[in-house]
């Protein structure tokens, strides 16, 4: 077999740019999907039935569709049906955020529900409003409980960002695939891609483990 590993240092700059885009996609998606997830979780618990139903539909739609389909849908269908066209990067971000918002809302909902009713009652008994009790007492506790799950979601998301490569976002996967198809260095580029994803992903997984240990529920 004829392998030429010099292709990797030769494309280091492009790969680094791709890795940065992958990281940016992960960070921005979570920055959007965490607050939106909390919002959707609250809407699902709304006393207004239509609001709760709508939020439930959103969650059940987006967590049961393959991300890659949502990505294609956002790229090809959204411009035609809604007349909105974004750059590939923003389109990928929208698709990933929709999917992760659905996941995070379920995470937060279970976290919020796991806080004893007595905590809210204790807050109300002090004279707090329902909103204050939620913001000051329930949410901070729920947040700690779901942090380990969010950490796992983060690690999964980091890898799943590779799915947006199908719409030419320029992330790590897309960049590596481009170089592969131009240089025909298939094994070298796939190996490099695996190594970079693993090297970036492993520390994140370790941090997630640490968070699991540190914030595991103790009462």
């Amino acid at each position, binding site marked *: 077999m004829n392998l030429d590993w010099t292709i990797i240092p030769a494309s280091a700059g492009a790969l680094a740019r791709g890795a940065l885009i992958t990281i940016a996609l992960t960070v921005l998606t979570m920055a959007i999907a965490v607050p939106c997830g909390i919002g959707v979780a609250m809407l699902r618990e709304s006393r207004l039935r239509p609001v709760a139903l709508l939020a439930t539909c959103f969650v059940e739609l987006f967590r049961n569709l393959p991300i890659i389909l949502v990505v294609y849908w956002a790229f090809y269908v959204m411009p035609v049906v809604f007349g909105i066209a974004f750059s590939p990067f923003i389109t990928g971000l929208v698709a990933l955020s929709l999917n992760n918002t659905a996941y995070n809302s379920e995470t937060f909902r279970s976290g919020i529900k796991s806080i*004893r009713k*007595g*905590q809210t*009652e*204790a*807050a*109300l*008994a*002090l*004279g*707090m*409003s*329902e909103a*204050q009790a939620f913001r*000051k*007492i329930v949410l*901070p*506790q729920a947040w*700690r409980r779901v942090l380990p799950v969010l950490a796992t979601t983060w690690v999964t998301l980091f890898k799943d960002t590779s799915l947006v490569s199908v719409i030419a976002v320029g992330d790590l996967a897309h960049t590596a695939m481009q170089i592969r198809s131009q240089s025909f260095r298939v094994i070298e580029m796939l190996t490099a891609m695996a190594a970079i994803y693993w090297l970036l992903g492993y520390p994140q997984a370790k941090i997630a483990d640490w968070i699991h240990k540190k914030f595991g529920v*103790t*009462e």
Partner: protein
Amino acid sequence: MTAATLAMQPAPRVVLQYRDVRKLYGDFVALSGVSMEVERGQVVCLIGPSGSGKSTLLRCTNALETLDGGELLFDGVPLPRDPASIRKVRQRMGMVFQNFELFPHKTAIQNVMMGPSTVLGLSEQQSRARAEALLVKVGLSDKAGNYPANLSGGQQQRVAIARALAMEPEVMLFDEPTSALDPETIGEVLNVMKALADDGMTMVVVTHEMTFARRVADHVVVFESGQIIEQGPPAQIFDAPIQARTRDFLGHLGWDA
């Protein structure tokens, strides 16, 4: 009447008045026709078997539960229904729960500061000063920085009492405050409650601690199946109960009336 003479008026003697209070949970009648009064400065103990409606009555008092019938007057005014007015009423009542319900993500002193800073809008400095004084009062000034997880049950409950007192309430409601405690820490909580009573605090206490009721209460109310079967001064209830059912209940607890 001028403002001066108004101020001279003594506060109404009766703080809490229950008139034919009813509460249902589906088909289950939790309270059926409960009538009683709590006077200012009084300690009223509610006793009776589990599930007899004592805690429900306490929870109705600060509107954690809504009434299904009858009337509940606080300071001569029926309990309001709208959230803003209910909050105002709750600010004037302190509540202590069986399971403490301290906020686990806050330290002891932060728990006590929560009411003053969040609800009363006091400054950080004012809330802290108030909380420090109250922790001294319940004997826990050395535990101010501890999280609830690092406090014993008795210490947690004393912090919970301080947290309720931080709102400077007119009435304190205790819902089985020692039922979740190890026997060796019950005494420290009861002592704090006794000291409060001696200070003249109006208290409504749901309890299974008969010795405490006997020693501290001004008035004892005996519940069974959602009704009051007997009420009166502790001497009557514990030494000469009129109702056979009161005698039965106390007998089951090993109390020899």
